[in-house]
C-alpha cells in the first residue's frame, strides 16, 4: 500500500478545520427565528456546520436572526463578547441587516450598530437556500482571512471598539410623580 503525503501551511490547515467545524449560536429574536429553524431541515450539516446550539461561549458563529430593539442591544453585545476568538457573525433577515421595516424609536437599524457583521443575508424572511449560500460565503471569507487576502465581501462595520451601556441620568427617573407606593 502506497503512503500518500500532503504538505500544507499550518494556518491553511487550521483555516480548513475552522471552515468545516463551525458551531452556530442563533440569537433568535423575532419571526425570522421560525424561518431560521426551517434552514436546519435544509441540511446545513452536509456542508460541515454543526447544528445550532444555545451555547455562545462554545460557538464560533453568531447568527443574529430577527429584529433587534435598542433595549436588546446590550444583551446582543454581551453575547458577542462572551464568544471566544475567532468568531464570525451572520445577520439573518432585513431587520438584522438594517432594521428592515422599522425605522423608529425602538429598533436598532441593523445589528452592525453594536457588533461587527461578516455576512448579511437580506430578505423578509430569507429563503433557507440563502442561508446556505451565506454559510458558503463565510467559509470563503475564513479561507481568505487565513491566506491574508481581503474578504470577498468587506465587512461594512468594523466596530470593534469598546461599547458601554449608558447609565440612567437622575433627571430621567420616570417615577417622580404618579406612583405613591411601589417603584424604585
Amino acid at each position, binding site marked *: 500500500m502506497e503512503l500518500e503525503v500532503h504538505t500544507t501551511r499550518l494556518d491553511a490547515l487550521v483555516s480548513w478545520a475552522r471552515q468545516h467545524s463551525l458551531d452556530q449560536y442563533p440569537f433568535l429574536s423575532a419571526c425570522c427565528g421560525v424561518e431560521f429553524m426551517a434552514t436546519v431541515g435544509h441540511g446545513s450539516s452536509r456542508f460541515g456546520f454543526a447544528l445550532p446550539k444555545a451555547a455562545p461561549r462554545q460557538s464560533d458563529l453568531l447568527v443574529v436572526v430577527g429584529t433587534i430593539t435598542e433595549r436588546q442591544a446590550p444583551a446582543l453585545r454581551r453575547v458577542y463578547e462572551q464568544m471566544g476568538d475567532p468568531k464570525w457573525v451572520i445577520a439573518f433577515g432585513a431587520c438584522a441587516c438594517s432594521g428592515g421595516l422599522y425605522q423608529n*424609536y425602538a429598533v436598532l437599524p441593523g445589528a452592525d450598530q453594536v457588533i461587527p457583521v461578516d455576512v448579511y443575508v437580506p430578505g423578509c424572511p430569507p429563503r433557507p437556500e440563502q442561508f446556505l449560500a451565506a454559510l458558503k460565503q463565510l467559509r470563503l471569507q475564513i479561507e481568505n482571512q487565513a491566506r491574508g487576502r481581503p474578504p470577498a465581501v468587506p465587512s461594512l462595520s468594523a466596530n470593534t471598539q469598546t461599547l458601554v451601556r449608558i447609565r440612567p441620568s437622575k433627571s430621567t427617573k420616570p417615577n417622580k410623580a404618579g406612583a405613591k407606593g411601589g417603584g424604585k
Partner: protein
Amino acid sequence: MKAALDWAELEGVLRSSADVLEGQGQISGLQWAHVHRKSWLTSSTYLANDGWSQFVDLSATDHFVEGESAKAAGRFVVQLIVGKGAARVALRVSLRLAELTLPSVAALWAGAAWFERELFDMYGVRFSSHPDLRRILLYPEFVGHPLRKDYEKARRQPLLRVGPLSQLKDGPK
C-alpha cells in the same frame, strides 16, 4: 344582571357627583360613554359594581394639532373597555397636556395595571395611586414618550456608546 349599559343609571351616578355625561353613543355594537376626567374613577367604579368585571383594553390616542397650547382641551383620549359576558362597553375621557393625569383603576381591574404602565410609557399619562408606575416596554434611560405625535420621528436613544472599559456596566462576566 343587565348585559348592556344603563345610560340613565350612569347619568344618575354622575349627576350625584355634580357631573354630566359628555357624550354617548354606540359603534359596531360597542356602547361608549365620554366622561370628564374628574368622574373617571366614579364611573369606573360604577361599571365595576355593575358587573362589568372583565378588563379588555385600556388605550390612548393623541390628537395633536401643531401650535396647540398645553391647555387646549382634548388632545389625548384615553379609552377603557370592559366586558360583561359577550357585551363590551367603552369609557372615554379627554385629557389636555397640562393635566395629563388620571386616577388608576388597577384596584378595580387588576389587569389594568400593566396597561396603565404602557400608557405612561408611550404617552406620559400619569396614574395617581398606581401600585408601580414604571416604564413597561422601554428602558428607564429613555427620555420622552414615543407615541406622542410631537415625538420626533425615528429619534433613536441608543443604550450603547463608545467609551472606556471601566464604564462597562453590562459587559462580559
